[in-house]
């Protein structure tokens, strides 16, 4: 992807507004006895990258399909840019990539976008711009069937950007991309948010969500179990202290922050200490003649938070390991 390529956003950027571009209230989808999505409430604001995180089968894609009008909800309501999901008015300013990118295998990448541009009434000059943006311009004339998985995914993102949308709904957009492509995709998503677009992004990569999203909704069993910013979810970092003698260090720190905020964990102390008080703790320990061998702040990982909230197992695949993220599901 060419990082320098830019979308001509100025053409249809609406004035900044605090009104959410996407609102869902009690959105529910039931298939017979199976409750796929259970009373999901959701708000996404302009310029916000909202991460939709959950294990496979949690209801992420079903929710996205309901927001695009592909699936009718069993109960609940939603508005997309103030309109009914799936209505031409709503979709006029929504770009979407849902699950695997669906294109005509016998058409070239360029012709596939021409077809989509005709459906949406998008001017054809946009095709070259979005192909450039996802670094597919050089292979635009080749048949879609000859594309690699990563190229297909990038064409899917190009299609989502074709209408120069105010809201992007991207379902696992980094699927099939190599590490460099994933990094570029994250950069692109971040940039789209900075340009004032709203992005609803689902992912199974915790690291990816952590790096890109402003807010996260964790969904499990069809329900949103929590919704917050990454830093709020991870909470305040603990201070880990390794010192000798440990019992004396315990007393000194407890005297500063209270006994309830200090706990022994093996041969270290785990303390809830505000960041601005860490230096004071260090000084107090040294003044008391205690040998401090380690003093570090340790944040909870998003994976820990996720596991606590969903009780779901995680696996760390090679792809996730490459990216420093965990693979949920």
């Amino acid at each position: 992807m060419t990082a320098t390529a830019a979308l001509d956003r100025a053409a249809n950027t609406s004035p900044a507004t605090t009104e959410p571009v996407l609102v869902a209230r009690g959105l529910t989808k039931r298939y017979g006895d199976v409750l796929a999505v259970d009373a999901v409430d959701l708000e996404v604001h302009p310029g916000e990258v909202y991460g939709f995180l959950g294990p496979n089968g949690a209801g992420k894609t079903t929710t996205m399909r309901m927001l695009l009008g592909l699936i009718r909800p069993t109960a609940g309501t939603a508005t997309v840019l103030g309109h009914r999901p799936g209505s031409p008015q709503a979709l006029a300013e929504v770009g979407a990539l849902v699950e695997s990118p669906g294109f005509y295998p016998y058409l070239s990448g360029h012709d596939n976008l021409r077809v989509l541009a005709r459906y949406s009434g998008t001017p054809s000059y946009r095709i070259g711009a979005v192909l450039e943006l996802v670094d597919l311009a050089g292979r635009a004339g080749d048949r879609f069937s000859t594309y690699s998985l990563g190229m297909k995914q990038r064409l899917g993102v190009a299609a989502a950007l074709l209408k120069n949308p105010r809201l992007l709904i991207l379902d696992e957009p980094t699927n099939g991309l190599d590490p460099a492509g994933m990094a570029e995709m994250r950069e692109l998503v971040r940039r789209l948010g900075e340009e004032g677009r709203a992005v609803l992004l689902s992912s199974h990569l915790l690291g990816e969500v952590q790096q890109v999203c402003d807010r996260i909704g964790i969904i499990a069993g069809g329900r949103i179990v929590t919704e917050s910013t990454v830093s709020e979810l991870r909470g305040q970092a603990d201070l880990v202290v390794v010192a000798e003698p440990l019992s004396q260090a315990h007393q000194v720190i407890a005297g500063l922050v209270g006994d309830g905020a200090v706990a022994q964990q093996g041969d270290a102390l785990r303390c809830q200490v505000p960041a601005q008080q860490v230096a004071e703790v260090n000084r107090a320990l040294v003044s008391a003649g205690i040998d401090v061998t380690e003093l570090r702040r340790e944040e909870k990982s998003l994976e820990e938070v996720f596991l606590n909230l969903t009780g779901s197992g995680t696996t760390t695949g090679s792809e996730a390991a490459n990216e420093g993220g965990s693979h949920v599901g």
Partner: protein
Amino acid sequence: MLASVGAEWMKLRKRPSTWVLGGVWLAMLVFFAYVLPYLTADSDTGPEAAGALASTLPAELVGNAVAGYALFGGALALILGALSAGSEYGWGTVKTALTQGPGRLNVLGGMLAALGLALVGMVVLTFAVSAGASAIVASIESAPYAWPPVADIVTGMAGGWLVLAMFALAGVALGTATRGTSMAIGLGLVWVFVVEGLIRASASALEFLDTVQRALPGVNGGSLTAALGARTVEEGGAPGVSTLISGGQATLVVAVLAAGFALVAGWLQRARDVV
């Protein structure tokens, strides 16, 4: 709607199977409607041979061009319709198209219009190739170039298009209903080549089956082509062509069936979740 027609037309025009089906149809037309009868006439001297030769001459243009629509042409049109609708599910392009925002029925309407347009091209090509083949036969046999009246040709084209459109719409309805191509084409061909034949064969023995067969797509398509001038099976013509039903009634039933298939496809497209 025009935007969707443009998108669908581009897809149909660039799709290799569209041209393969068209090519197969024209090859069948030339071989079975002209080459085979001519060779038969050339190797025999009886009344059948004379009839076979006469069928290839310019005067029989309309009947010869539309004769195959009731069975083979209809089957190919059904395949075209099933491929157009069913592939969208197989490739996952339904969601891609619908999220562009034209509306579900708008997309379907575009597809039907593009198919209708393609069938117009198919009918025009059929008549052009038939005219060329019969002109060659007339030239070889030093027979007169006695072309049918223009009004008959136009009527033949319109009637032939209606038969093909009915089968194509049946294919669209099957492709949409089964969300795929294989099952849709399989079911469609089994219906055209097997089920209708069995019902026809049993109709003389069971009265209610005689009533049923008068509503069948193939029977009405065959009766319409017969009314347009195609020779019946009994006259040595193409399979499926019969005079069981009058031309007027057959035209009406074919039109109603076509509309019915379109309504089924539209209802399915509008009502069902895209999963």
